[in-house]
């Protein structure tokens, strides 16, 4: 059974989020005065939405490379916790595994943990298809934005709500899977608390705190699943 069809279906909402967001990045990037294909290059190699938007500020300020490295590490450090919960899912090896790790964005993580693979013996291929499709949407968005710049007339305002809707839907799907209120309530408390107290670092702090509490709870319960 082909994995491409199901992966395309599952990833369509990400397309509606990544293309307008990538285009927004491309337009801002073009204002810096670089040729358009550098936006494509960033989508292909950096492939991190928030970090690319941050890069626009760093590039226009001609920030030093150490500052670039430190701010990118700080912004993306939440991804460490994504990997922790994917150790047993990412069972393939070699280049395929490297690509899965490279392409692990918030949205890719959400789809991989929230949508079922069409057959259990082809899970890795399904994950790879999801990762590659998501990245292709992002690269297309970055390129279009930088190429067309402000010429585009189509009003995409609000289209990136597709990502919010995707997270909402996958939240319900997680509930159907897990059927235990603890992780949801824990994360809701951490999320709202971090949003109110430390808006800037909300994602990193709330994810880190939730994972730490989950680890403690696992130790206390003797790792019963």
């Amino acid at each position: 059974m082909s994995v491409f069809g199901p992966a395309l279906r599952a990833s369509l909402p990400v397309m509606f989020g990544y293309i307008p967001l990538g285009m927004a990045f491309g337009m801002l990037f073009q204002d810096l005065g670089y040729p358009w294909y550098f936006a494509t290059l960033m989508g292909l190699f950096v492939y991190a939405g928030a970090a690319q938007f941050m890069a626009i500020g760093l590039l226009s300020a001609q920030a030093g490379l150490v500052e670039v490295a430190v701010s990118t590490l700080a912004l993306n450090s939440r991804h460490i916790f994504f990997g922790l919960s994917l150790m047993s899912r990412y069972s393939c090896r070699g280049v395929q595994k490297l690509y899965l790790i490279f392409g692990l964005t918030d949205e890719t993580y959400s789809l991989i943990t929230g949508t079922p693979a069409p057959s259990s013996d082809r899970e890795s291929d399904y994950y790879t298809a999801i990762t590659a499709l998501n990245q292709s949407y992002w690269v297309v968005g970055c390129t279009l934005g930088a190429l067309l710049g402000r010429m585009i007339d189509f009003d995409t305002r609000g289209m990136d709500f597709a990502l919010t809707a995707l997270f909402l839907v996958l939240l319900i799907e997680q509930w159907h899977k897990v059927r235990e209120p603890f992780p949801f309530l824990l994360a809701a408390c951490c999320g709202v608390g971090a949003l109110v107290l430390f808006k800037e670092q909300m994602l990193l702090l709330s994810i880190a705190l939730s994972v730490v509490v989950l680890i403690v709870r696992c130790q206390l319960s003797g790792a019963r699943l």
Partner: protein
Amino acid sequence: MNDHTYLLLVILVMTAATFFTRATPFMLLHKRADHPLLLFLGRFTPPAIMTILVIYSLGSVEFSRYPYGGPELLAALLTLAVHLLWRQALLSIFAGTACYMYAVQSGLFI
């Protein structure tokens, strides 16, 4: 330093830093993928992260000023309702997104 060289170096540094954050757990723990703690996290981290991503993506909404998050709440409730009724992910997401795009573009809330 040539301007394009600078940009290429920035891209290189950002690529390495981003990959590093994504790869760290796999590099450190690849021999213990079936450890009970990692299996536990594999089961309970996704629902926690999904909850946080929902809060985060609605967190920048200005609820204290007009339109009091109206478009976001309307679209989020529609997404939830459609999903609870039919449980067709694409349908729910399209309904919510279309509703939101209409709400912010039509001037319904101005």
